[in-house]
């Protein structure tokens, strides 16, 4: 018997689990795979919280002051991050444009570039999904008064990758910079750039940003600012964020069951009792007092769309489903994004038609909630963190 069973191992589920563990609860987190954090670059958007809070049914409207608490809670949980409530910072996209966000790994903070007139972009040899010329052109557009140049770095340790005709994934590069040899190579390359006359700031793709003290130490000894970059999925920084959160779960005595989806949950008189997971060979029944439903949206597959309808995959809960098609502007509003579960102030799933609470001891959190759009409102991290934290308080 668990105090709380968290279904879903993404940002919302992990934060819910960590908070509940801190409160002394016995927690098991069950997850189909390793969550969606590696699909994102590791920066967490909060968006215009005060405006969004005024929208009826928006998650920020019912999590209330939990949004601000979640912001500082996360900063205290993960010291690699920086941010100031109510202010925005900037990071570089994988293509070298600027993008605003609220919580970001210090390593990605692009603000030093605003003060630099001479920007050097390091080009680690063979780095996968990195396009130096495009990055250079975009940086030049973002900082028209400055001068941007590329600096190729040849890293001999990857000779066998080149021989195999392969580019080197960002995850492999990030791991390498943290090793002893990688550390030495990094120091040598960065010192070389710093020693050149036309260098005032270095943009360095593929650097680890979370939980790599070896790299932090090298960069602390450099007089120039070194700015990392977000990357395409699978993102090394997103993965590192995931790992730092799962380590925290384990360090607090929590357990993760990864690689199995929840098949169904047995419900008696509006209370969830047992989750049935499909272990190898047989079903395993997991009994808990309370449950968190944080299985994600369409990408995380908490929601599944078929030609006929949209389904919630664990409980089969009734959903708020706007007309799914309709957005004519590809990058504009797409109604499907607001599909999801409606909840009461305690995150308990409600019937969208009647408002009746359907499950007394289940708290929904994260992308599966209805009435918000992370792409348009830029609040994906904030909603997941604040609803996850609230769920962790309620468990």
């Amino acid at each position, binding site marked *: 018997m668990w105090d709380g069973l968290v279904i879903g191992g993404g940002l919302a589920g992990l934060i819910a689990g960590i908070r509940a563990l801190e409160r002394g609860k016995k927690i098991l987190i069950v997850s*189909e*795979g390793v969550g969606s954090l590696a699909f994102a670059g590791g920066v967490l958007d909060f968006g215009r919280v005060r405006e969004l809070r005024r929208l009826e049914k928006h998650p920020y409207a019912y999590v209330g002051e939990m949004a601000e608490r979640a912001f500082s809670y996360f900063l205290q949980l993960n010291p690699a991050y920086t941010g100031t409530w109510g202010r925005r910072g900037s990071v570089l996209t994988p293509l070298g444009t600027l993008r605003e966000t609220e919580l970001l790994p210090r390593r990605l903070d692009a603000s030093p570039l605003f003060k630099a007139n001479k920007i050097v972009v390091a080009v680690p040899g063979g780095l996968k999904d990195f396009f130096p010329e495009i990055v250079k052109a975009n940086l030049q557009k973002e900082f028209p008064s400055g001068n941007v140049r590329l600096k190729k770095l040849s890293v001999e340790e990857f000779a066998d*990758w080149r021989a195999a005709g392969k580019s080197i994934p960002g995850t492999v590069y990030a791991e390498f910079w943290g090793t002893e040899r990688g550390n030495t190579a990094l120091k040598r390359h960065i010192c070389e750039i710093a020693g050149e006359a036309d260098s005032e700031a270095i943009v360095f793709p593929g650097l680890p940003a979370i939980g790599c003290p070896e790299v932090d130490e090298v960069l602390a000894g450099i007089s120039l600012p070194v700015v990392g970059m977000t990357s395409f999925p699978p993102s090394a920084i997103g993965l590192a964020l995931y790992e730092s959160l799962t380590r925290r779960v*384990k*360090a607090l005595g929590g357990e*993760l*069951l990864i690689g199995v989806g929840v098949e169904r949950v047995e419900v008696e008189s509006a209370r969830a009792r047992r989750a049935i997971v499909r272990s190898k060979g047989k079903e395993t029944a997991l009994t808990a007092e309370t449950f968190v439903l944080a299985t994600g949206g369409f990408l995380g597959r908490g929601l599944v769309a078929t030609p006929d309808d949209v389904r919630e995959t664990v409980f089969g809960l009734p959903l708020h489903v706007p007309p799914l098609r309709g957005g004519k502007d590809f990058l504009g509003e797409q109604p499907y994004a607001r599909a999801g579960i409606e909840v009461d102030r305690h995150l308990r799933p409600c019937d969208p038609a009647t408002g009746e609470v359907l499950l007394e001891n289940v708290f929904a959190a994260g992308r599966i909630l209805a009435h918000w759009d992370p792409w348009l409102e830029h609040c994906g991290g904030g909603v997941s963190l604040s609803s996850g934290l609230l769920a962790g308080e309620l468990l």
Partner: protein
Amino acid sequence: MYTQTQWGEEGGPGPKPAAEPGGDDSHRQECGDPAGLDACVKCGICTAHCPVARAYAPFPGPKNLGPDAERLRLEGVALDPGCLAYCTNCKTCEVVCPSGVRITDMILRARRQQGSAQAESAKSRLRIRDHVLGRAEYLGRLGTVWPEFTNTVLATKLTRRLLQKALGISAEAPLPKYKKRFRLEKGSAAELTSESGQNGGKSVEGTGSSSMGRGAAGDPSAGNGSASKQVVYFPGCFVNYNDEATGLAVIRVLEHNGFEVIVPGFHCCGVPLTANGRFREAEGNARRNLALMEPYLERGIPIITSCTSCGLALKEDYPRIRVPAAKRIGAQTYDLFEFLWLLHERGELKEDFLEVRVPLAYHAPCHLKAQGIGTPSLRILRLIPGVKAEELDAGCCGLSGSFGFKAEKYELSLQIGHALFQRVRQGMREGKFKAVITECGGCQVQIAQGSGARSLHPVWILAQAYGLGGGT
């Protein structure tokens, strides 16, 4: 759930019809979506987590070898078969996949289709090596005839150099030492013999059965409505030939909980054969073992494993064999600690624990993670007063059964395990823990090789807490 549509056929007590050895089109025809090809969204998470792809540049990784190449294979285009042999079958890709794609299954099926033994190891000496390394059981039987002699011979540099030259078995690799053959302790009803059941018959002759728990037989409260408190123990080759003591500890712990432990003369589970491309023989072993299990399975008696790879084979591979017993094997197989946790949840686990004051580090074997049961040994050990256990969480050890014994893969296997070794060494040095525990015998051997730290099966901590003889 969405994944149900792909998983429906597999796993679970209702087995999917097995593929024919050699050629395998049956699976493809059964499913509209061949093994979840459409479910793969190409996110690359599997390759980012693959222990081999991270360390070894020429390996294309699970995404390319699995779902990507599968589309080509469906069109009759085969890739370089040598690549496939670098998959260690650790199943990390399947565990981390957010879309439930059976990636390792695809890779194994491809190996099977290519008649892989010949294709992967083009040189005949390597074919002989695959033949040898796949047969942990026969080697074990030979080795345990006179273990001291075998160990002495195997320890000499000359032998190892010859093995490397002649067979491509690395001279540095940590071949486990042979011990006295696993047998039940004095008072057991019968000696173990492995010869029984060779013909696939239902014979349970040569079955050993522990005596101590016999008094408790007939307790109707135990498992699955069976009429007695009996369990069958599947020791596996590592216990049988390299670590007899752990097998006896498992039995003592089960007996302490009032179970009579039955140990038929099982054969190797087949995992080493599969890993070395010997699919047909692996299936033969599965059939022989299932025949030995059948009478017990019919009576609802649980099968207990203490080796996580044997456990995974029994739960995942055996249900696919086309014999009646296969219908029950998945549902009735338990990892030792999975079983003990169920007892705990029912209030039937003896919890008369003595204090065990030892800080421990726990390494979760890949094939435990793949079972989808979490880490029950940590849960149980944390019930014991005094036990502090932290999870190392440093990935695969790199050995993967016989993978790390192969001359061309030995260095790679150490490189894969590097993060784990570093963590172990650092923790030991700083005094954060005094011993490493892990269920898998292969992981134990590799951790010792890579970090110098001794590691042992978690059952030893439990045995110590029960006052049944300690391990640390």
